[in-house]
């Protein structure tokens, strides 16, 4: 493993130093706790309430959609960068490739719009197709 010995030593050293710094200061350091010191750090302000709070699931939805469309833009960007300089045959070929690729995105986007994934208006969020238990109302079920 010749070439990797240095890396290994570095990793071991880093681990030893990290563990030593934290554990030694914890073991040897003087402690005079007060209630204020023992409370969780929240930017220097007295903490308010529990950190484990419920928050709307819409944040997750928006985060997921953002990641997806973000990656799409990254991909498009790299394609655009080379597109202008490329020869014609590549332009034609890659254009249609990207059209196909974009089609999948557009279908996905339409779907996201259709299921109101981007709808922040609370009053319309409770879909009328759903019954009180949150199940979709189905036709033809007794």
């Amino acid at each position: 493993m010749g070439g990797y010995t240095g890396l290994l030593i570095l990793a071991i050293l880093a681990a030893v130093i990290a563990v030593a710094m934290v554990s030694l200061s914890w073991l040897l350091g003087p402690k005079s706790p007060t209630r204020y010191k023992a409370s969780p750090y929240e930017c220097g302000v007295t903490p308010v309430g529990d950190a484990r709070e419920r928050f709307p699931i819409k944040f997750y939805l928006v985060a997921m959609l953002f990641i997806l469309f973000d990656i799409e833009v990254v991909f498009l960007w790299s394609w655009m960068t080379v597109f202008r300089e490329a020869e014609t045959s590549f332009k034609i070929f890659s254009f249609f490739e990207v059209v196909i690729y974009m089609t999948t995105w557009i279908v996905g986007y339409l779907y996201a719009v259709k299921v109101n994934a981007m709808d922040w208006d609370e009053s319309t969020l409770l879909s009328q197709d759903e019954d009180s238990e949150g199940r979709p109302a189905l036709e033809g079920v007794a």
Partner: protein
Amino acid sequence: MPDRFLFPIPQDLDWFALGPIIVVVATGLVALIVEMLRHKRNNAYVVGVSVVGLLVAGAMAASQAGEPAKEILAGTFLRDRFGCVVQVLMVAACLLSVLFSEGYLRQKRIAYGEAYPLMLWATAGGMVMATSRNLVTLFVGLELLSVSLYVLAGLSRTEAKSEESALKYFLLGAFASAFLLYGIALFYGATGSLHLGRVAEVWTSGFETGRSLLAVGMALILIGLSFKSAFVPFHQWTPDVYQGAPTNIAAFMAAGSKVAAVAMLYRVLDAAQPMVALWLPPLFWVAILTMVVGNLAALVQKDAKRLLAYSSISHAGYLLVALLARFKAPDVVSDAALLYYLASYSFMTIGAFAVISVAARAGRESTGLSALNGLWQRSPFAAVALLLFVWSLIGVPGASGFVGKLLIFRDALAADLVPLAIVLAVASVVSVAYYLALVRAAWVADESEADAAVAPLNAGSGLALGICAAGVLGLFVFVGPLLGWMAGPRSAEAERAPIVRQG
């Protein structure tokens, strides 16, 4: 600046070879559009589009099985007989699961039309896993399959069990993917390529660092794939996930996902042939453990879906025996036993899950063995079909399961893996006990009052059951031609011929 860039335009684009995968993905998109346009949650058109697309893709894949193997798109796609047969199997597994989905999902009141596009894309992922020797392409296929299945497992989103199933599957699946990716990274470090074909070259080069990196990388890849194939000791997720997931999804997971994982394992082991002395001993013990633990744990199950999950684990063990025999003695043993067993296993398992899905009613589903009580009165056809599937799962002569086990047994002996053959035979005998519990629940035990009101067998389930039953019998009757189709012309030269590499 212009010509410093490489502008790759694939010169060897064989659209027809890529056809089956493209058709399945496109069908998924069309099905999603139809789902958006459909009227009042009526999924008939979504199902229709899915079925048509799958039939076309299956026909395209089947028609190419006989053509010479070739690799296109700079080595990222491989079209060969094994890949084509697995593609057909994947499509069949999806088709059968789709057929009995609608009735079941309606009974359970979770008839989300999105299930069908997701199943199609999962199938496409599985098809990719069988038709490439490029590790990144394989990984993308695996993730496409897995991510779709994570969502599908949680389809019944108001049910805690389904959520648990999705979360467990997701966490353990992500864990397994991490192993796999780490292995792929080490593989790249060792070979400087992501193509599995480079293994032999690096392994025989005698360059020690490369060899040890490759060995560790391969070990991690095998661990990742063992998770996906549910080999013991990487099987713990299986019963919980199968039990919690909607039954049609569990059927698809048990058949489709297993077929895909075994196909990818086949590709990896095929490439790792020169290292056989290294990986054979650990996988030998994994196979024994899988068969023993799978069958013993199934003995004490009280839930039909958990029972079938353990059954699928033990069948994974049999499949691993077939794989090991195939690569221990590549000149003697062909792909036929493995592929035949995969086909037979898919039919039996989907069929058995379809029978269990009949027990779903009015948004609640009980999958305990007692839910099957009195099935022979409620739905004689389903009960007879269940008898046939169990018959085949045990491996009694007269159905495809017997031929499959016989072929694997014969191959194991031919490859000098006698202990595996013996464990396989003993495990099959043990399995009689728990499979009979299924039959007993359906045929012997009396129906309790509470279970009396149950919907009759709907057309889709009936059709799926019929096809599965016909498949189990058909595979048994047409063994000869099928084996010929799966293994191709049995000449050693043809089988070992180097793959034509283009582009």
